[in-house]
């Protein structure tokens, strides 16, 4: 969640409400706007977390507009106006325009690289103060990251208008990589290739324009002024020429990107903030491609009063509900006696349908006023019987035999699963691995529980013996039955494993534990037996497979005189044995260990027959 630092003093000034509105009132109400107070320096500054769906909360201006509504200082739509020079809905002949002095012509060259450009001019009598400048940069960064998907969909440039005034019309076009200018924060001219290789911004965002197949030949989107001086190299960096300082009075904002809807939403949020900060906004004129002069269109969304009352458990009248929406700085209009039509300003792209308005009604109502109600359940609860009852019996029998339950992660590393247990690391497509884990300890899904328990012993060599551990949990196996790949290729099975470590630990004890557990859990275990086997975890000659033999009648053969024949199937459900001493010594475990692992998913259906 993004975080912004706010000053109570500034908030109080921006809200400009009555004296009753104090620091305490604000700190009490902020959480009910969805803003978590992450820290409070005890003096004046708080850091708040805001949700990614409300980037307009990235500045204290945006937060104060919302607080004005919630506290009832100002309600309804936030005043917003842009000086327009032409009708955005009519197409203007670029060569014969008497419209906006801030004209940007978009060439066809950018259409396949970064087709969208929009923007605004913001003028102000005074100079930018340091705090406001910092807040604007925070907003810009947040829009880049959230709505802009790390500048891919939207990148915003802020320019000092004084330094480029009179140089319009601008051209948004492409240039080759050899094109050079002085980028922001640098003092010498650099070519685009140098910028991409040698500057921080170039390394971070250069791939957004170089990875596109069409720009590989060196066509980079660029904004040039009428003298062909570089204004910006979106989405990477601005020119040094237009740097904003605290002496800046008027700003030119450019927003470029791949989606007109998102670019215009980002522009609306910036424009609202600048307007509320006291700037006068003047429209720019954009033409070329699918671009248009920014319309700042409002939308209408409808909400049913009954639906809202039903979901919120309230009994609001239509005027109550409208008041709630006004407190969220929206523009409700009564449609009929049960429906409200609501004007949504362009800076709220998060409001799309009725449910979004119901949430706004709840916020405007004040969610601290929503009283919890407890109604009786109409249903009876159940655990998943087949699984839960067996699991419980297993737990009881294992702890009865003095075993301590262990819990390991399903996601483990090749070290525990393969290297330490003397197992060859298979080809990638024979284990189930994650693509981009941040840690080698979490890179493969386990196919065995016992390997984890052996590793657990190694972490406990200083604890007293005997040590007895068991675990029930999920293991992950690839389906290798060659079936059509319609299904999930990975099957998840529940296993049980146990390990016993101390000076006298041996095969017989491990088998005894397994046998006792099975007889308590399943009763009759006559069809379970052990047979010599070899397994990477166990010592040769001290390892057995656990086999369940099932007699299943076969369909009588019509040619045969015998009415029925039966077939026996042997199902290997696990292994028991003494842990290979080489594995133990590579883990520096100084006592012998024995144990077993069985598949409950495979044995449960066989044994319950």
């Amino acid at each position, binding site marked *: 969640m993004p975080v912004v630092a706010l000053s109570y003093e500034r908030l109080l000034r921006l809200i400009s409400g009555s004296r009753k509105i104090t620091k305490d009132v604000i700190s009490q109400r902020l*959480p009910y*706007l*969805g803003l*978590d107070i992450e820290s409070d320096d005890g003096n004046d500054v708080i850091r708040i977390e805001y*949700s*990614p769906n409300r980037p307009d909360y990235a500045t204290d201006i945006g937060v104060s507009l919302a607080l004005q509504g919630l506290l009832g200082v100002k309600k309804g739509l936030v005043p917003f106006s842009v000086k327009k020079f032409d009708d955005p809905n009519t197409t203007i002949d670029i060569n014969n325009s008497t419209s906006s002095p801030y004209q940007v012509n978009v060439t066809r060259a950018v259409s396949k690289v970064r087709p969208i450009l929009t923007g605004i001019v913001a003028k102000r009598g005074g100079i930018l103060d340091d705090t406001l400048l910092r807040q604007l940069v925070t907003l810009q960064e947040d829009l880049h990251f*959230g709505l802009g*998907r*790390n500048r891919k969909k939207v990148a915003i440039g802020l320019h000092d208008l004084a330094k480029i005034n009179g140089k319009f019309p601008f051209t948004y076009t492409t240039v080759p990589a050899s094109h050079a200018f002085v980028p922001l924060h640098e003092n010498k001219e650099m070519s685009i290739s140098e910028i991409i290789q040698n500057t921080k911004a170039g390394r971070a965002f250069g791939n957004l324009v170089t990875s596109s197949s069409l720009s590989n030949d060196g066509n980079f989107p660029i904004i040039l002024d009428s003298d062909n001086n570089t204004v910006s190299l979106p989405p990477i960096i601005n020119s040094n020429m237009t740097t904003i300082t605290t002496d800046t009075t008027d700003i030119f904002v450019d927003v470029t990107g791949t*989606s007109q*809807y998102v670019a215009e939403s980002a522009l609306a949020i910036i424009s609202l903030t600048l307007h509320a900060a006291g700037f006068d906004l003047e429209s720019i004129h954009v033409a070329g491609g699918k671009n248009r002069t920014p319309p700042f269109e409002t939308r209408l969304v409808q909400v049913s009063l009954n639906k809202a009352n*039903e*979901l*919120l*458990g309230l009994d609001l009248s239509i005027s109550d509900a409208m008041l709630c929406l006004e407190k969220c700085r929206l523009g409700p209009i009564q449609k009929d006696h049960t429906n409200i039509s609501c004007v949504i300003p362009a800076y709220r792209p998060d409001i799309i349908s009725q*449910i979004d308005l119901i949430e706004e009604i*709840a916020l405007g109502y004040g*969610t*601290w006023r*929503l009283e*919890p*109600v*407890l*109604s009786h359940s*109409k*249903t009876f*609860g*159940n*655990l998943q019987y087949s699984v839960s009852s067996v699991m419980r019996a297993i*737990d009881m029998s294992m*702890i*009865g035999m*003095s075993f*301590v*339950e262990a*819990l390991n*992660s399903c*996601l483990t590393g090749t070290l525990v699963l393969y290297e330490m247990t003397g197992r060859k690391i298979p080809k990638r*497509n024979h284990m*189930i691995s*994650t*693509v*981009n*884990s*941040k840690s080698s300890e*979490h890179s493969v*899904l386990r196919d065995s529980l016992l390997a984890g328990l052996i590793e*657990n012993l190694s*972490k*406990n060599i200083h*604890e*007293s013996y005997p040590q*007895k*551990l068991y675990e029930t949990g*999920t293991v992950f196996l*690839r389906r290798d039955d060659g079936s059509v790949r*319609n299904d*999930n290729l*990975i099957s*998840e099975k529940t296993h049980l494993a146990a390990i016993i470590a101390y000076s006298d630990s041996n095969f017989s004890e491990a088998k005894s534990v397994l046998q006792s557990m099975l007889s308590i859990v399943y009763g009759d275990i006559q069809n379970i037996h052990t047979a010599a086997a070899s397994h990477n975890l166990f010592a040769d000659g001290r390892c057995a497979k656990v086999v369940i033999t099932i007699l299943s009648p076969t369909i009588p053969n019509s040619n045969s005189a015998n009415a029925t024949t039966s077939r026996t199937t042997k199902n290997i459900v696990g292994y028991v044995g003494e842990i290979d001493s080489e594995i133990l010594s590579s883990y520096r475990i100084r006592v012998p260990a024995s144990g077993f692992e069985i598949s409950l998913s495979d044995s449960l259906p066989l044994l319950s027959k």
Partner: protein
Amino acid sequence: MSKIVLHPIEKKIIASMKLKPLQSLDALVLSTGLSLDQARRGIEWLRHKELVHISDSKEAFLSLDQNSLQLPNMTLPERLLLNLLSDGLPKKISVLKDALGASSFLFGVAMGIAKKNGWITVNQDKHNNADDNVTISLSSTHPLPKLLPGESTLQIIADCNNKDVQIKATSVDKADLQHLLKRPRFIKQTIIITKNIKLAQSAKKLDILFVDDKKNDHHLSNAIDVAAAVPNIHFGRTHPLKDVISEIKEIFVTMGFSEISGNMVQSCFWNFDALLTPQDHPSREMQDTFYLDDDVSINTLDSPSRHVSRIAKTHTDTWRQKWELTEAKKMVLRTHTTCITLQHLLATLSLSAQKKLTDMRIFSLGRVFRNEKTSYKHLAEFTQVEGVVYENGASIRDLMGIQTEFYRRLGLQKVKFWPTFFPYTEPSFQSMVYNEKLGKWVELFGMGIFHPDVSYGLEYPVLAWGGGVERIAMLKYGVDDVREFYANNLQWLRSSVRRV
């Protein structure tokens, strides 16, 4: 003096020690008639009560060794030689050698010692060196001592050995013994450590227990020291986190919820797309989610095509960007259990005869995954629980009520709800619970009503809440580092105690 309870063994020892306040363990065994083991235990108990003091003393004991044991009649080799010469006549070396046994060490030793002491003279022909020309005779100048050095001491040791009586090094002549000890493998010295038990001053005054009170005595003779420390037993137990999980399951069931479960490996479609997470949303990136190799991508989405195409349309309409099927077919480790809930709801709906769901309360509990570096407060794999209510007329206030009751049953009394944002619920809240220990509100479970585009096709709203179980277990067990739950540290597993 306070009354001290003594075991009959202890009483016997004290009674004997009162007569003789310093005794060895062996002496005590004899004087009390106790077995060695009983005496040892009794002494240990008494030492613990500071009624006796124990000190060690070392003592050397002597016995014959390999070489002295071979002596004929326990006679020193030099005495044997001198005996042969006692008639005063010179004897040839070969004769003497034969007499002492040609192959034994005796002749050499005897000659060495006799020569060194000047008891014999060697007469040699200058022109012939052969043994046969050399004769030995008794010295005329050095008179023989009556007893040779070491002779009497050897006799004493040999006598004791024969009679199986231990002989202390201190009980023989020290100088004489040195002559024997110099010889290789002749006399063995064994150091034996003896425990000396001394009655403590406080015990000397102890007499109350020896009062001839039959009734009392009978009672006390069976009494043991009930205050004494006893060893710990390594018991078996289920994992503390599992105990919290069982408790949570029980609370759900008693509140009318039924358990559901499902796979941890899910397609992106179920984990993200069906829950309205845009395909370019940051949480879908590899740095936040564990993706599995492309070769396990699902071939056909495990959902009716009607559902898939509706979800695709919702994505394109809402975010105005293309929805990619290949992206939806990738497999991930589920980042929440809501995918299980939704699958269950939609599957039950499609199986129902009237294509209508009746009231339902369900919960799912299982592991979920986030591609994060682990720390004291974050795990890459943790346990999440989620409860869902599907009832006609249920509102967000009912969800708040059920959740408050859920927390109350977990022992968490103070709860409030703050609005927040989740992609698949609206309105959404996070519950804040007051932590008495930290003295502040902490964030616990998230909650909300499924977005209508998620629960499309269902008649009533779907109320859901959920979160990490480890957070609750941390409160209950006073654990500060969440990694403890998966470290399998036996010391912790053998000793952790529930605090709340």
